C-alpha cells in the first residue's frame, strides 16, 4: 500500500513537472519571437557553451574516430572489405555517433554548468532581483542560454565529426595502411547531403533544444539551497543524457535519420 502510494505520488509529481516544463518552454518560445533580441547576451552564451566546449569535443572526436578506424578495420578485414573503412567510419559518425556523443559531452560540460549557474542565481536571489527590477528572468537569463545551446550544438557536432574523421583517417591510413584515396572516396560515395548531413544537423539541433530546455528548467526550478544547486546539476546530466538517447531512437525510428 505504501509502495503504491509512493508510486502514485511520483506519477502525479512527474505529470505536474511535465505541465510546468510545457509552460516554461512556452514562455521561452514567447520571448524568442519578441524583442528585445539580446544579441550580445546570446553571443556571450554561445561562447560559454560552444567555445568552452571545443577542447573536450575535439579531443573526444579524434579519439572516437581513431577507435572506430581500428575496430572497423578489424571487422572489415574479416570480409576483405578494408576499402570500405572510410564509408563505415563516416556513416557511423555522421548518422549516429556524432550527434549523440556530442550531445552527451555537451550535456556533461555545458548543460550542467548552465543549470548550476541559473540555480545559483535562484539561491542568491539574483533571479528575484531581476523580477523586482521588472526584468523577466526567462527573457534575460533563460532565453539566451537555451538559444545558445540550440545554436551551438550543431556546430559542435560538425566539429566532433570532422575531428573524428581525421582520427579515423590517421589510424586507417597512417597506421593500418589503407589507401588514402580509397578511404576518402568510399566516404564521399557513401555520405549524401540530404540524408546524412542535413539529418545529423537536424538531430543535433533537436538535441540542443532538448538539453537547453532541461538544463534551464532544472536550474530555474531548483530549491534555493546549495543542495538544490547540486540536485539541479546532477538532474540535468541524468535527465539530459537519458532524453538524448530516447529521442535519438524516436528520431531514427520516425524519420530514418
Amino acid at each position, binding site marked *: 500500500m505504501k509502495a503504491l502510494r509512493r508510486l502514485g505520488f511520483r506519477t502525479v509529481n512527474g505529470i505536474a513537472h511535465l505541465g510546468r516544463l510545457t509552460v516554461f518552454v512556452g514562455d521561452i518560445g514567447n520571448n524568442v519571437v519578441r524583442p528585445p533580441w539580446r544579441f550580445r547576451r546570446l553571443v556571450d552564451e554561445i561562447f560559454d557553451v560552444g567555445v568552452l566546449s571545443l577542447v573536450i569535443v575535439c579531443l573526444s572526436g579524434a579519439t572516437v574516430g581513431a577507435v572506430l578506424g581500428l575496430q572497423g578495420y578489424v571487422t572489415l578485414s574479416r570480409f576483405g572489405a578494408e576499402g570500405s573503412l572510410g564509408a563505415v567510419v563516416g556513416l557511423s559518425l555522421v548518422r549516429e555517433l556524432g550527434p549523440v556523443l556530442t550531445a552527451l559531452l555537451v550535456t556533461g560540460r555545458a548543460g550542467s554548468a548552465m543549470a548550476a549557474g541559473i540555480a545559483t542565481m535562484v539561491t*542568491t*536571489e*539574483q533571479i*528575484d*532581483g531581476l*523580477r*523586482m*527590477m*521588472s526584468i*523577466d528572468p526567462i527573457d534575460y537569463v533563460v532565453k539566451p542560454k537555451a538559444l545558445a545551446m540550440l545554436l551551438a550544438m550543431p556546430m559542435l557536432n560538425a566539429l566532433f565529426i570532422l575531428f573524428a574523421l581525421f582520427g579515423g583517417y590517421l589510424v586507417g591510413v597512417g597506421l593500418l595502411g589503407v589507401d588514402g584515396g580509397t578511404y576518402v572516396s568510399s566516404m564521399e560515395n557513401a555520405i549524401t547531403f540530404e540524408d546524412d548531413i542535413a539529418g545529423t544537423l537536424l538531430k543535433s539541433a533537436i538535441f540542443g533544444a532538448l538539453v537547453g530546455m532541461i538544463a534551464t528548467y532544472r536550474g530555474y526550478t531548483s530549491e534555493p539551497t546549495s543542495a538544490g544547486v547540486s540536485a539541479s546539476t546532477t538532474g540535468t546530466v541524468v535527465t539530459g543524457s537519458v532524453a538524448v538517447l530516447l529521442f535519438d531512437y524516436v528520431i531514427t525510428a520516425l524519420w530514418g535519420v
Partner: protein
Amino acid sequence: MSAGETEARVRLEDVHLSFGRHPIFRGLDCRFPRGRISVILGGSGSGKSTLLRAIGGLVRPQRGVVWVAGEDVTRLSERELFRVRDRIGMLFQHGALLDSMSVFDNVALPLREHTDLSEHDVAAEVERRLGAVGLPDTGALLPRELSGGMLRRAALARAIVTDPEIVLCDEPFSGLDPINVRRIENLFVDLNRQLGLSLLITSHHIPSSLRMADQIVFLQEGKAVSGAPKDMRHHPDTRVARFFAAELDAEAPEESEP
C-alpha cells in the same frame, strides 16, 4: 476611503500565508504610510522577509489583499506586476547583484532596460548614485570584490537608480560592523528626507531601528502590531515588544554616542 487609507502606500488586509503546513501569516493586517521609514521587527522565522516578498509580489498569500500603490498585487499576473514593481526598489539581504557583471553594469541595468537614456547619461546617473551611497570609483569592480557593507550600498544604489516611490530593504544591517550600520542608516534617513521615499526595512538591529523609524511593526505569531518607536519602547504590550525592549536595554551602552 478614509484619509488614512489614501496615505498608506502599502497596506495588507487579512493576509494568510503558509509554506506547506507551516503558517507564516494568520490574518495579518498592517499599513505603511507614504514617505515614512517603517521598520519591521520580529523574531527569526516570524515572516519579516516574507512580508517584503509578498509586497513585491514574489510570494502570493493564500488569502487576503496586499495593496501597493493602489493595486492589489495578489491578483496581478507576473507581467502586470512589472507595472507595480516599476515603483518599487528592493534591497535584498545579500545584495542580489548579478555576479557576472561589474558594479557599474549592475546599477546601470534598470536604466538600460527601462529608459531611453543614452550611454553617456546612464554613466552620469550611475556615477551620481554610486557617489550618493559613498561608493565613487567602484564601478569597475565585480560584486565579489566588495565588502559586505559596500555590497549593500551598491545594491541600494541599484534599488534607487530609477527613483522608486517605495524601497523594500531586507535585513540591511545584518553582519555589518557598527560603522557600516551607521553609514547605511544615515543613507536611509537622507533618502527619506531628500527624496520622500517610503522605506520598509526589516531588521534585528534595535538601536538603529529606534533611531530612524517613524513606525515600527512587530510581527508576532502571524499578526502585526505597529506603533511609533517611543510607544513601543515605553508601552510594550506584546511578548515580542518586551523581548525587543529587553534587547535594546542590553545593547544600549555599546551603541551610545560619545
